[in-house]
């Protein structure tokens, strides 16, 4: 059962806003906040269950941070390869991690897709820094095993 959007929104709005504020500063955080929850609202009817909503909304917020960074990069500037390497698009990473358990998947995507540190991932997943580290490395181990 998916909770009414109001409940979902009230539960997560403040921490999503804090998260965006830390990454973008207050001014851009307001726009990113609105965009995050509008995207969540668009995708909401397609959710199959109400689990891991917190990780889900943080994944949306992280994606908006990445989009925002891309937009700000001045036109014509040579791409900074190191940064691009550090941030494979969510689209690239998502299909590879489809079969992971949700928490491991979120940890892997947020760590390697969005370059969040483990403290931020812990906050996003509602657990701790060390639990986030464990989930990400368990996810990576599982992916390696599947590759073999």
């Amino acid at each position, binding site marked *: 059962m*998916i*909770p009414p*959007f109001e*409940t979902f929104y009230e539960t997560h709005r403040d921490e999503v806003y*804090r998260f965006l504020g830390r990454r973008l500063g*207050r001014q851009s955080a307001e726009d990113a*906040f609105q965009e995050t*929850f*509008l995207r969540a609202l668009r995708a909401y009817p397609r959710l199959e269950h109400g689990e891991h909503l917190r990780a889900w909304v943080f994944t949306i917020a992280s994606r908006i941070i990445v989009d925002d960074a891309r937009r700000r990069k001045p036109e014509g500037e040579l791409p900074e390869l190191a940064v691009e390497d550090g941030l494979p698009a969510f689209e690239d990473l998502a299909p590879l991690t489809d079969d992971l358990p949700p928490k491991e998947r979120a940890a892997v995507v947020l760590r390697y897709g969005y370059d969040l540190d483990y403290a931020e991932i812990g906050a996003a997943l509602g657990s701790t820094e060390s639990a986030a580290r464990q989930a990400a490395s368990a996810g990576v181990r599982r992916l390696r095993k599947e590759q073999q």
Partner: protein
Amino acid sequence: MTVSPSLDERFRAAAAAAELLDVAYDVLPDTPVGTLLVGVTDRGVCRISFDPEPEHHLELLARIFGPRVLRSSKPVDRVRRELDEYFEGRRQHFDVEPDVRGVPEYYRRVLDELARVEYGTTTTYGTLAALTGNPRAARAVGTVMNRNPIPIVLPCHRVIGASGSLTGYGGGLDRKEHLLRLEGAIL
């Protein structure tokens, strides 16, 4: 750092403007019959309740109309205005359509008949029962009235006992009496 009230309102307005809501609701404080919760969909008004606590309604609204239920003031403006006019005695008929999705078929037939009961008049449970095909179902009609999802707009306050007593009202008898007095149906 928390979401400021103005950012919160901006998001709620944007959500409605983008037509992304299954139900928009708002709380109308201090009407002549107390604080009301009003819910609307793209088809019309889907909920009016004398219990204004959103917590008591969100799950059910989400189940019937879809999970995107959000408090948002603008979509409710039309109903708010019509209710204001009604309470001021300047409106006898609501133009907003009732959205009765989720109401069982028999209940819906009773509510259709109820919608025809004119401002300032009353009818009886038995009469409504007869109009919907079963004169002995007065008690069942009472149940339908009690569970009316859109009181005031669907005027269950105009249904009284055959003896002329007000009988009962989901929102409390004093509210029923207030509405009937407002309409001049009783002195």
